[in-house]
């Protein structure tokens, strides 16, 4: 039971965004998707969610090709938290979160309960009556997260089938406290059997929070391994093309770019 | 009181005019068994004038926006523009008969009126004296005023004959142009198949745009210069709205025309000039006097 990319290639015109990528997301663990800008991280996530159709290869959910699945069926198996939302109308926060509900659950108390529950988990319970357009970027991200949680609730009730949560840079606008809250929630879901794939920029966060890491470079998946193996200084230095140092702080891994200015392999070899 | 008076006169004249109309082939297809109409609504300024000329203006209960002659009809209830009449508005006036010019409409409204039991008749179009005579005779038949209609037609023909006689003295034909409107730098001139063209022909003048187009079309400055009319005619209301002769002289399309420079421009009342009704001979006279100059004088009868 996995969500996987099977030899997927995606092109934007002449540009190869993903090159024959083979990646499996397992339920019950967090896979961090890492890499420099333009390496195909977002494209990978979009392929996993079904938003982009591969030019070559297939995206499989439990062995079934996503292309053959209706959007509604797919929505019962996975939820997505996009980087940005495009809302231009003055919905109330509670209504936006409620959009993650399916069918009749909207109208009866269960739906309302689910919305309240998700809202408190994402720490937006105090904003339920607010006009979503008046919220800050971080607050809107938390609302989007709450909506994904609500959608997952319905998904998780399907017995025997794992659900997946896809997060695209979920912490980009969040302050420290909310980063912690969000990751804690994601971890809770994972413990309940959900498979999480998460695009991240913060390597320390990835080391702390993820189980596995998928490293992308120029559209290719160059490494997919448990975090301890994937996030080494050597691998990361090659990946980001600048010296990366990994250390420990109070027993926890800390990863950061070193103070030396990036010079590229040739310059470093000359030193 | 008044109604009884009219009814008596109508009944007295029913038989002879019906026979005449039948002979002329202008009899209405339905018999006048419902009696003369008491309450008449007219759609079209020319229709109103004809009703007035036949002495039935007292039976008018409503007129359209193009009816403003004689002055008294301006006080009558308005039924709207003759091409976009309102069914209920007309029904509120409880008419027996609606007489419309050929342009009266829209057709669904006329159908609704017929359905409500109102008699609706439209008159044929007129482009010359015979056409006017036919219109007047048709109204006369509808109102049971055939003798009056004949009298009016006779008067018109006589007057027009005088005009024709006066015109016989001239061998040349004045070259005229009718300006409908001036907007956004565009000049709309009447070609053939317009009322203006018709009245020009009645006074044996040439419409300089007769061969160039039908209806009203925009003409360029060069086009105007090429035709070089002797004089320009417009509706007086439009001339006034545009700002008078000065405005025409300032307009780039018209400013180089000799007719405009020398002020040979005439504004005439719209319905009078173009209505093709009882006053048309008077309009022809006025127009001819302007077009032919002071030499145009009619012999006194």
């Amino acid at each position, binding site marked *: 039971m996995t969500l996987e990319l099977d030899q997927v290639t995606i092109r934007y015109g002449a540009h190869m965004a993903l090159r024959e990528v083979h990646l499996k997301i397992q339920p019950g663990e967090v896979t961090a998707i890492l890499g420099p800008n333009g390496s195909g991280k977002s494209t990978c996530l979009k392929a996993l969610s079904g938003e982009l159709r591969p030019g070559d290869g297939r995206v499989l959910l439990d062995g079934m090709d996503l292309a053959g699945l209706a*959007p509604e069926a797919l929505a019962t198996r996975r939820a997505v938290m996009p980087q940005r939302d495009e809302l231009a109308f003055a919905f109330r926060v509670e209504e936006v979160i409620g959009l993650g509900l399916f069918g009749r659950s909207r109208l009866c108390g269960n739906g309302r309960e689910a919305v309240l529950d998700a809202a408190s988990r994402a720490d937006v319970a105090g904003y339920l009556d607010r006009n979503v*357009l008046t919220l800050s970027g971080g607050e809107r991200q938390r609302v989007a997260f709450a909506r994904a949680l609500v959608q997952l609730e319905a998904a998780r009730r399907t017995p025997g089938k794992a659900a997946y949560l896809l997060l695209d840079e979920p912490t980009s606008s969040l302050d420290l406290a909310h980063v912690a809250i969000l990751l804690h929630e994601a971890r809770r879901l994972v413990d309940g059997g959900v498979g999480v794939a998460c695009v991240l920029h913060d390597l320390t966060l990835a080391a702390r929070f993820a189980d596995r890491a998928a490293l992308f470079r120029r559209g290719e998946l160059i490494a997919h391994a448990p975090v301890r193996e994937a996030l080494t200084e050597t691998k990361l230095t090659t990946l980001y093309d600048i010296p990366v140092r990994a250390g420990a702080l109070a027993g926890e891994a800390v990863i950061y770019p070193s103070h030396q200015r990036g010079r590229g392999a040739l310059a470093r070899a000359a030193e | 009181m008044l109604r009884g008076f009219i009814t008596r006169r109508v009944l007295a004249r029913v038989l002879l005019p019906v026979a005449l109309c039948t002979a002329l082939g202008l009899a209405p297809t339905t018999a006048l068994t419902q009696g003369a109409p008491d309450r008449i609504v007219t759609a079209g300024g020319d229709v109103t004038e004809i009703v007035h000329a036949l002495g039935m203006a007292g039976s008018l209960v409503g007129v359209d926006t193009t009816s403003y002659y004689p002055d008294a009809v301006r006080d009558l209830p308005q039924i709207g523009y003759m091409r*976009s009449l309102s*069914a209920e508005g007309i029904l509120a006036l409880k008419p027996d008969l609606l007489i419309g010019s050929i342009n009266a409409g829209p057709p669904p409204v006329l159908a609704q009126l017929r359905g409500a039991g109102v008699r609706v008749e439209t008159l044929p179009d007129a482009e010359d004296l015979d056409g006017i005579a036919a219109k007047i005779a048709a109204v006369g038949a509808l109102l049971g005023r055939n003798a009056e209609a004949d009298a009016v037609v006779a008067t018109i023909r006589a007057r027009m004959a005088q005009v024709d006689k006066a015109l016989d003295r001239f061998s040349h034909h004045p070259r005229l142009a009718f300006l409908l409107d001036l907007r956004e730098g565009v000049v709309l001139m009447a070609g053939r198949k317009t009322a203006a063209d018709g009245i020009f022909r009645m006074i044996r003048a040439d419409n300089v745009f007769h061969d160039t187009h039908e209806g009203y079309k925009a003409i360029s400055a060069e086009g105007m210069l090429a035709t070089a009319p002797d004089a320009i005619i417009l509706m007086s209301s439009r001339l006034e709205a545009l700002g008078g002769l000065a405005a025409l002289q300032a307009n780039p399309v018209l400013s180089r025309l000799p007719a405009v420079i020398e002020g040979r421009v005439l504004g005439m009342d719209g319905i009078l000039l173009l209505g093709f009704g009882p006053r048309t001979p008077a309009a022809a006279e006025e127009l001819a006097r302007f077009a032919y100059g002071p030499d145009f004088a009619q012999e006194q009868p």
Partner: protein
Amino acid sequence: MTPAAMRWTWWQGVETIGALPLGLLLLAVAMLGSLHVGAVPLDVFPALKQGLASLLAGDRMTGEPYVLYQIRLPRVLFGALVGAALGASGAALQALFRNPLADPVLIGISGGATLGAVAAIVLGGILIHLSPFWMAWTVPATAFIGALAATLIIVQVGARRGGLDVTVVLLAGIAMNSIVMAGIGILTYVADDQQLRGLTFWTMGSLALADWTVLPVLALVITLPLLLLLTRAEALDRYLLGEAAAMHVGVDVPRLKWAVVLAVALAVGAAVSFSGAIGFVGLVVPHLVRLVFGVRNRVVLPGSMLLGALVMLGADAVGRILASPAEIPVGLVLGTVGGPFFFYLVIRQRGRAS
């Protein structure tokens, strides 16, 4: 259930069950009120009874019942249908374009309808004057074809791998309106005086063509797409999250877009073809509904239908009262009020954070 949950459910219940009958009641009252307005003085209820009696006895109606049943009643139903069609189409297009300033005129549907009608009036020539029957049907039919053609062209141009590119559609709408303007300009140039006057009447927007031969067809052609839109209300809400996000939440986006575009083309084409170009209802009515009831399409769509119908009836009543016994075309009344209101909306929109 927590108290908060219970409170919410009650309002939800009112929303889904209570508001609709209430709205319909309001509409019925408005229609009844409209029946009282007109140049002919008549008592509505006695006339209604009389007319019904005539109908059942198979007699021809005359007098007041005639005016009520043959002139006012079709007009009132007509007005409600056209108003509902325009209101709902505006709301649906605003959701489809995710822009509160979208309306049928913007993407060229109304323009296509107008061009079709103008073509019929000018080129139809003899056909139109053959009989009133032809006049009543030729123009609406060609206007309808024009609306559909415009929509299909725009959808084709804006089509992109299974969906619609909103920006391209908006641009295509601008292009379509330019073509329509040019086409109307050419036809106007070619038209003779009589045809020109006919055009002016038609383009002002009026309910005068309402009668029982036309009404059943109009009712069918408007009701079907409106019902379709109502079933899509929830999906449209999700669509407002963004195309990708909507797909994530289970919306079949390409299908939704097609359904909305075709429904709107049908409804607007029908409305414009029988009543001429009437503006502002599609733009203004959804705004008003959102101001009071919030932005969820489950409320905005039916609300726009009801309010659109009410606005149309009100404007028509005003047009019939002010110039009695003549009447001001409803399009003119709406334009006079709608123009300044539109300005106000634009100014308000300017200050928004989004």
